[in-house]
């Protein structure tokens, strides 16, 4: 997993705030991503999970500099890319690609599949003429499509096929890191498995590193080596995949994991679900303290006053919660 321990991407205290409103109506700051830090090692898959609106997608887009970070540092392969201009970024862009969520919106409907896949090749002037053509056929076959598809238009394909085209487009420039922004959430369950398996195969074949953003916990467990759990713009727990699923420490992670259905109705009905009270708090002008405190059943005064930092508890397992130790006792007690 962390073998060799070479971080390909380091995210240090990354923040992305969106300012809305004018000086007259009062400025509002939406803290979409509020100081997240993690590393992704070469060849691994880092899963980023959290409920809708917690800032996963914003984090992904900020990491690849589609959004300019408000604060923090992004280090890609020992190069600081935090404040690079678009021009300086161009060679980095070749090495860092993205697979998008909506296969219907991520392909330009006015371009043929050839033009879509070749866009990166043409932009970086990687190949021309017959080599370019062969590369496109090769990529189509790599993602399980046919040569004959090259001259078609996106609307002639199904969602799964379109996602494959999107994957071929990102593979065309031979990237090191691929940010998968919920690549399977818009697909049918049967197609989801196909795409995830294909992503795993591609990872082995081309030595890719993935940042896998998703909210489907079982799928994330399947593909990830390490997982970060986000809640309202903050990372609440980072851990190895198996460790997280067997020993969740943060109360949010616990409730999140308890929502995974067990594919056996008898067992599922016996299972205890931790149902969160209340709604997700607004990310606009947040108060200090733990973001999760208003919904946390263990919350105490300290949680509402002091923002918890990520603390390392066990190897590679970090949690941002003041009460981990106490909860752990209680949790173990409960399960006894």
């Amino acid at each position, binding site marked *: 997993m962390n073998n060799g321990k070479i971080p390909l991407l380091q995210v240090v205290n990354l923040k992305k705030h969106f300012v809305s409103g004018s000086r007259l109506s009062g400025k509002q700051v939406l803290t979409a991503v509020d100081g997240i830090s993690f590393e992704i090692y070469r060849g691994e898959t880092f899963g980023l999970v959290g409920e809708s609106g917690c800032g996963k997608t914003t984090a992904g887009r900020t990491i690849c500099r589609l959004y300019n970070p408000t604060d923090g540092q992004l280090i890609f392969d020992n190069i600081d890319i935090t404040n690079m201009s678009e021009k300086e970024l161009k060679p980095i862009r070749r090495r860092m690609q993205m697979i998008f969520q909506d296969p219907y919106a*991520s392909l330009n409907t*006015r371009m043929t599949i050839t033009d879509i896949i070749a866009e990166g090749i043409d932009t970086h002037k990687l190949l021309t003429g017959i080599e370019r053509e062969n590369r496109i056929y090769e990529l189509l076959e790599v993602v399980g499509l046919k040569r*004959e598809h090259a001259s078609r238009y996106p*609307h002639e394909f199904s969602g799964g096929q379109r996602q494959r085209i999107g994957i071929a487009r990102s593979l065309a420039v031979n990237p090191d890191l691929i940010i998968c922004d919920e690549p399977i959430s818009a697909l049918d369950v049967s197609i989801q498995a196909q795409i995830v398996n294909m992503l795993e195969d591609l990872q082995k074949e081309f030595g890719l590193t993935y940042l896998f953003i998703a909210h489907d916990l079982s799928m994330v467990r399947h593909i990830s080596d390490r997982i970060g759990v986000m809640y309202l713009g903050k990372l609440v727990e980072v851990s190895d995949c198996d460790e997280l699923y067997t020993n969740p420490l943060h109360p949010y992670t616990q409730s999140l994991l308890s929502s995974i259905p067990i594919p056996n109705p008898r067992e599922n009905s016996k299972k205890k679900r931790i149902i969160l009270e209340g709604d997700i708090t607004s990310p606009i002008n947040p108060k200090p303290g733990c973001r999760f405190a208003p919904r946390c059943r263990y919350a105490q005064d300290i949680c509402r006053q002091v923002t918890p930092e990520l603390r390392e508890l066990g190897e590679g397992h970090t949690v941002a919660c003041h009460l981990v130790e106490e909860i752990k006792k209680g949790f173990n007690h409960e399960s006894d």
Partner: protein
Amino acid sequence: MRKEDFEFVDSSLKQDKEQIRTSLTYWKDAWRRLKQNRLALVGLIAIILITLIAIFGPLFTAHTYREQDNDKINTTPALDIYQIDDGLFVYVSRQYRLFIVSEDGVLGDLLVNTETNVNLRYKTYEYNGEEITLDYSYKFSDDPEYKDIDFTFTYKDVETFEKHKTVLNKTYPFGTDQLGRDVMTRVFYGARISLTVALVATLVNLFIGVAYGAISGLEGGKVDNTMMRIVDIINSIPLLLYVILLMVMIDNRGLWTIIITLGSVYWVGMARLVRGQVLSLKNQEFVLAARMLGVSKGKTITKHLIPNALGPIIVSMTMMIPTAVFTESFLSFIGLGISAPTASWGTLANDALGGLELFPYQLFFPSLAIAITMLAFNFLGDGLRTALDPRLRKG
């Protein structure tokens, strides 16, 4: 189920059947839907006809747009002819000029006027040494008995007062204007000028508007704010007033002046439209994907944004052409447009104003041309709007 019930499928059947199917592109699909809209097709055909007439019409008429025939001024499209002798037909113009005319409406020579008596309301003309007297006093008579009589002719001592028939003017199908120019040729020629002005002005608008709007929308932030405030300022000046001022400022009044004036002002609408489209497109995932691949801003505009905004742009362009035709006609009508002897539909309408009561046809034909053109473009524009609507297209 037994094994024998099954048989092996021929391998050729397993091939993807889809390979044979040609792909239905966006434009093919739009054309298919446009064809179903009858009104839009009528508009399209009318536009093609008008364009053909504008290009080739003036070549096939017997007269040129500037050729004057001082004898045959203000002749009407329909001629009331009188038979004053065997095979001798005459036509009286509204100014009591007497023309020889054939029975089927070919206009002959103007007869020489030998005597005019305004008090007794008669005129005499000479034809082949004989005298024709035209008495138009009945026209002014209040006696209901003579209500139906307009003119009486005396030729070789025979009096004629009964209208023979009304025929269409074969020499000048749309009549002539007050300078004896063929109205039909001038309307055809005017189509050239009006459509050229409209088309070129619209193209200028298109290029400025699309480039301006796309840059403003894609850049966003301060650039967008500044660019759009400039548009607001231009838009807050009454456009017609601005155009009139510009036309007065630029002395040389010709085709190009009016094109430049129209082009320099009317792009703001297009710029706004394109900016709106770009704003809604630029956060779509395919544009983000292009950014991720390092595609430059210029390429993003030309390859991703404009092709996807083309539907509304085309619709707006089709709607802009009739507006430009109308504005050009209006400016020419108030005397700021094309100068004589060049004719646009607007100048034709303006020229016709003087004799409106007596010669309404001189206003009718250019106005009809303007109306048909505007209607045709509006029908087509509406049809295109429906045909290019992305909501009607699946996937």
